[in-house]
């Protein structure tokens, strides 16, 4: 199903760029088994302390971004580690969504935008003219703040991605739909009504449907823009559990306004302020002991 584009295959990356990430999350994740890495990149070492080192999945270098003449990102350089959750926090309008949408070129479809700097996925430039943006977006999926089910059946929503990628085999589609829904923890709730409209699901179910729909395209990276901000606490908890579960196999980047959420689900956090990446680091360290004054003010609620 996945014809990997030549331009995006793994390049040798800088061996020194390896993160140390604490995977001992709040939900007793100590016993997680790491999936073997099949690429030619540096081997991930599991250490006795429960710390795992993660290679860089996405690296941005000196990214500036403009809506027309209005510059909203200033020289953002950030490394995002593989198979872990990276959270973007910062006050409204600071450019979190814009930066997130840079990563799978969603800003391309907005007229009058431009950028400078590089975005590298496994070492290759995603803005290179030879990159097929359709294939890029299959590898770097996105979940939006407002759930956006298509006005189709639940089955057709999930099968959409594989279908546009050219998959016709009914049995294979059935399998993908089932595994995607199971991974998104929605299967039990909808398995008896796959052919009814997705619009009839509750808000929380719709959001998990959108996550399942993204999983069905078999991405490596999932970008989430405030995925739980429109949900009630119970649905939010389910989505957070899901994110925690998914990071075993996927690289996840999540934008959130909820500091507790960032602390709960993420291993690394990046704090943005007025289009500038102020501080980035291990989530626990950043929340307990921020180095920058602005970060401290923000996380202690002094402005926001």
């Amino acid at each position, binding site marked *: 199903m996945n014809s990997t584009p030549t331009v995006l295959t793994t390049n040798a990356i800088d061996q020194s760029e390896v993160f140390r990430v604490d995977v001992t999350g709040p939900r007793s994740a100590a016993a997680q088994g790491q999936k073997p890495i099949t690429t030619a990149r540096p081997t991930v070492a599991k250490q006795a302390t429960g710390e795992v080192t993660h290679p860089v999945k996405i690296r941005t270098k000196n990214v500036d971004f403009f809506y027309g003449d209005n510059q909203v990102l200033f020289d953002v350089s950030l490394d995002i580690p593989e198979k872990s959750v990276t959270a973007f926090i910062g006050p409204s309008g600071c450019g979190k969504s814009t930066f997130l949408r840079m990563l799978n070129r*969603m800003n391309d479809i907005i007229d009058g935008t431009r950028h400078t700097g590089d975005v590298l996925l496994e070492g290759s430039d995603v803005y290179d003219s030879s990159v097929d943006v359709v294939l890029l977006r299959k590898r770097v999926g996105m979940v*939006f703040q407002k759930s956006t089910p*298509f006005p189709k059946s639940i089955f057709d929503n999930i099968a*959409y991605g594989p279908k546009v990628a050219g998959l016709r085999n009914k049995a294979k589609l059935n399998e993908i739909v089932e595994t995607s829904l199971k991974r998104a923890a929605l299967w039990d709730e909808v398995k008896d009504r796959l052919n009814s409209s997705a619009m009839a699901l509750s808000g929380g179910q719709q959001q998990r449907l959108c996550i399942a*729909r*993204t999983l069905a*395209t078999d991405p490596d990276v999932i970008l989430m823009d405030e995925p739980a901000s429109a949900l009630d606490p119970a649905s939010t908890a389910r989505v957070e559990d899901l994110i925690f579960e998914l990071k075993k196999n996927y690289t996840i980047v999540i934008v959130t306004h909820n500091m507790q959420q960032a602390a709960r689900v993420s291993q690394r956090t990046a704090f943005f302020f007025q289009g500038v990446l102020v501080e980035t680091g291990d989530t626990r360290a950043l929340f307990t002991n921020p180095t920058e004054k602005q970060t401290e003010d923000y996380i202690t609620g002094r402005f926001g």
Partner: protein
Amino acid sequence: MSTASTSSSDATLSKATSSLHRSASLVRLKEWGIRSLLFLCAAVSILTTLGIVAVLFSNAIYDVSPRQVGPNGEVRTNEAFFQQVSLTEFVFETRWTPGYTEKHFGIMPLVCGTLMISGIAALIGLPIGLCSAIYLSEYAVPRTRALIKPVLEILAGIPTVVYGYFALVFVTPYILKPLFQDLLGFNVGVFNAASAGIVVGIMIIPMISSLSEDVLRSVPRSLREAAYALGSTKFDVSTRVVVPAALSGIIASFLLAISRAVGETMAVTIAAGQTAIVTADPLRSVATMTSYIVNVSKGDAVIGSIEEKSIYAVGLTLFLMTLVMNIISQFVLRRFREVYN
């Protein structure tokens, strides 16, 4: 109020109050006047519709006083169409010859001609109209849009009689004749259903494209972004997400356009001729319901004759057909609005 005259301060108060009342009632009168005027304007269309229905009914179905005494004392019968012709004949007879000595009143040839021309028009107008709507809403950059929209509006503004002559003096001799007669060996009539269908199809393109474009544009942007984020090309987004999401609106625009094609008169009268026959050959002349009405109206049918009455029966049939289609399209459109509140 009754105690107002006891003290001077009360008196002023009373005066103020009463003047307040006077102006209030003046305002209310003005309000009433405006409201009545607006109501009358709205009522014009309702009254017109009722009037048309009444005329159609009394001439086609049932006349309350069919016997009338003329100025010289002679008695004329003025019976409605269906008081003289049975509904069974009207529906099942295959000949339509009200002007001949041997009269037959089967609506089938006229319905057949109307459906053939509308069918050809739909075959041409619907896909082209929809494709231009998709182009305008999904593909066109603002500059091309600004160029195409006025052209479509001009197309919509051309008088239908011009379309009729365009069919007669261009489409038939320069397109249909060379293609079907010289190349393929069919016989192409001077008047034919195909040329009429083609120009009516062109005529309904602006209607379909502007109505469909509106519904396509009303599909939320978030839905398009979600589709792009799943690895869609622009074509996937347009055909698999946007068009299906707007489907009921598109169908409604199709129905409205088809009912316009069914009711189209001038172009059809000029281009298709006046041969009321049941045929499957689009290269022959046919008569439609509308062209029949035109030809009888401008001809010398005697007032009160069955020939004159027949146009009301045809008109009623046409009225019912377009009414049903408009009702269906309204219904479909309402369903679409419910999906995206």
